[in-house]
């Protein structure tokens, strides 16, 4: 039993009209690991998680969560699962304690057990002293913590966390990332979706990179980085560029990918020592000025750039 995958995803497809949201996604998540789905917005991460939560029915394929099929045993899946949705899904006019108590009942907890678990979760999320305040009065970070707390009430074996750090302050983000690691340490399996490369890199045992509904790579961080080979990523900023410099960079030998991203140009190169002077030369030739340069070790951003030709945050 311990060798059984916590989550087995087998060739999932989901479309909404003409839009193919998920196309043949397959992966396994071992028990007790953190598995991240990494990809830009619209990559199909939330649709995949929605199918794995039995919120959406796949057009094709199946998945098993702790042995329960999402197609034939939705209640079985839901009973072993805790879901932290991307949005805050709480009743703002109820207190944190009332919220937890209600959601606990929905997970089948009653009486003393419910009361005990609500108290424990309030302690875990650090809101015991403010438990009787209405959630509507909480800060964004506090709401996020309650949002996570709800999914922990019934001590699930598997937790899905769908971009839980979107739109919150760095302190709350740090707290959430720490809590994810703590959940793993308690033996829970975490399926984590994010479009922040750093989060996936920090937390995950395994990472699946998704783009346009497809899974384009899957493995450990090191395995994925190896896909880039010995390539280096150079991030540059340009002044007075009319677009011709970037085109010229693409033609330089040793440059494999160039992508513009929020004013920064990410360039993937085989050997930075040889290519970097050529980048300056091309900029000068086109009357542009390089105002900053950063040479980075290969990371998931570089992997994504290597695989898709686009920066992760495009």
């Amino acid at each position: 039993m311990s060798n059984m995958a916590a989550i087995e995803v087998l060739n999932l497809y989901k479309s909404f009209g003409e839009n193919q949201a998920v196309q043949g996604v397959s992966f396994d998540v071992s028990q007790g690991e953190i598995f991240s789905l990494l990809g830009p917005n619209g990559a199909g991460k939330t649709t995949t998680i929605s199918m794995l939560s039995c919120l959406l029915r796949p057009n094709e394929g199946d998945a098993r969560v702790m042995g329960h099929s999402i197609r034939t045993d939705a209640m079985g899946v839901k009973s072993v699962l805790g879901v932290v949705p991307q949005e805050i899904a709480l009743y703002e006019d109820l207190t944190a304690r009332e919220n937890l108590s209600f959601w606990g009942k929905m997970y089948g907890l009653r009486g003393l057990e419910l009361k005990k678990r609500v108290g424990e979760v309030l302690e875990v999320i650090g809101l015991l002293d403010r438990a009787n305040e209405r959630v509507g009065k909480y800060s964004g970070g506090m709401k996020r913590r309650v949002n996570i707390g709800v999914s922990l009430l019934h001590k699930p074996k598997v937790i899905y966390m769908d971009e839980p750090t979107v739109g919150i302050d760095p302190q709350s983000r740090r707290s959430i990332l720490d809590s994810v690691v703590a959940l793993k340490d308690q033996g829970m399996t975490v399926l984590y979706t994010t479009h922040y490369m750093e989060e996936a890199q920090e937390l995950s045992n395994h990472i699946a990179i998704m783009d346009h509904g497809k899974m384009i790579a899957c493995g450990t961080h090191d395995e994925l980085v190896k896909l880039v080979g010995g390539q280096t990523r150079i991030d540059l900023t340009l002044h007075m560029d009319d677009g011709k410099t970037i085109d010229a960079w693409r033609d330089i030998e040793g440059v494999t990918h160039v992508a513009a991203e929020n004013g920064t140009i990410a360039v993937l190169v085989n050997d930075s020592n040889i290519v970097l002077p050529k980048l300056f030369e091309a900029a000068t030739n086109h009357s542009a000025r390089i105002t900053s340069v950063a040479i980075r070790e290969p990371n998931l951003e570089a992997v994504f750039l290597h695989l898709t030709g686009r920066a992760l945050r495009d």
Partner: protein
Amino acid sequence: MKAIDIAIKDLTRSFRSAFAIIFMFGVPLLVTGMFYFMFGNTAENGGFDLPKTKVIIANMDEGGPRFQVNPKNIPGGREADTMGDLIVSILESDEMADLIEVSFARDPETARASVDIQQAQVALIIPPDFSEQFADMEEGKAVIEFYQDPTLTIGPAVMRSILNRFMNGMSGVKIAVNVFIDEADTSDYAMTGLVVQQYLDDSLALSEDMEGELLDIRVPVSEQKNEAEQSENLLLTIIGPIMGGMMVFYAYYTGASTAQSILTEEEEHTLPRLFTTPTSQATILTGKLLSVFLTVGMQVIVLLIASRLIFGIQWGNFTSVILAAAGIILSASSFGVFINSFFASTKQSGVLFGGILTVTGMMGMIKIFAMNSAIANKMGDTVSMLVPQGWAIRGLMQSMNGEPFNSVLITALATLAWSAAFFVIGVLRFNRRYV
């Protein structure tokens, strides 16, 4: 059990909102209270204006034995040559001027036609042999044709009361004359006219305070002992229907806005989260619907009791009130579920709710506010039956009016049919949306 948990959670949320409390309980009582004070003042001063009843008379009476009535007993009246003239004189008298508006037709057909086209509310047709028949002490049968708009109640009732009183008096005259002829010597027969005149004068003199006695407006309390109570009862006949209408109107709003919580939860993302818990969709929907029924139920019960305590409105006997209240609760709740099932978001519903509920609510209440207008009353009777609010109000009014249990039951069953249709359609649509 989970369905009840969901319902209790929704109730907690609903009743935690001050706005909802004011809207559900405060506003209906406040509106009724405004009417109460508005009409209360006039009722206490005895100044309540009953609209005049339009009466058209076709007096075809050709006369018979001549009677002269003392005009001093008919203020503003005139001498009467026939029994028909006498009736006309009474109806045209100053005392009647506040109650009825008299016009004349040249023949019975014209008089009836005036009622048919609603130019008049009552037609009185006095036949050519009316005086003749009245004068026939042995076998005479004097009959006046009373032709009325069947949709009206108060105006024709006033007229009937006036005529009954008059005809009773005339019957008394006949009896008095018969007794006089039986008892008197033939030499005294010449005094017959004097006896008749004396009886007639006495009879009419008793009618000086006719207006107060003519209004037989039924009130919830069984006895009217004094003037203050009479005034209070008259007030309740106005306030009761208004409170009933307000209750139904706002119960439908509550039903719709509580059912809207299904859409709200979808937008707050709590509904999808509920679907990720090991709780079946049927249980979740049952819980949501239960909360709608319980919220509307609580509102109706509180309003029934509060209006009884505050305004003294008597809603009828217990079983009838229960039936009528159940009709309101079921129809308001299911209507809320029904209309929400057609909306994709609260933005959409917010725009359309007000319009739909106001229009259907006003259609349902049209009879309450048009009870003194013949045309509107007749139209309102039909129009109100086109919307569920009309049936809900009808049941409550029947209960208030003390109508037989079977009548209330039939209306409740009709309301139940509306509710069942709304409920089934609403639930099917919501089921289809979330499966």
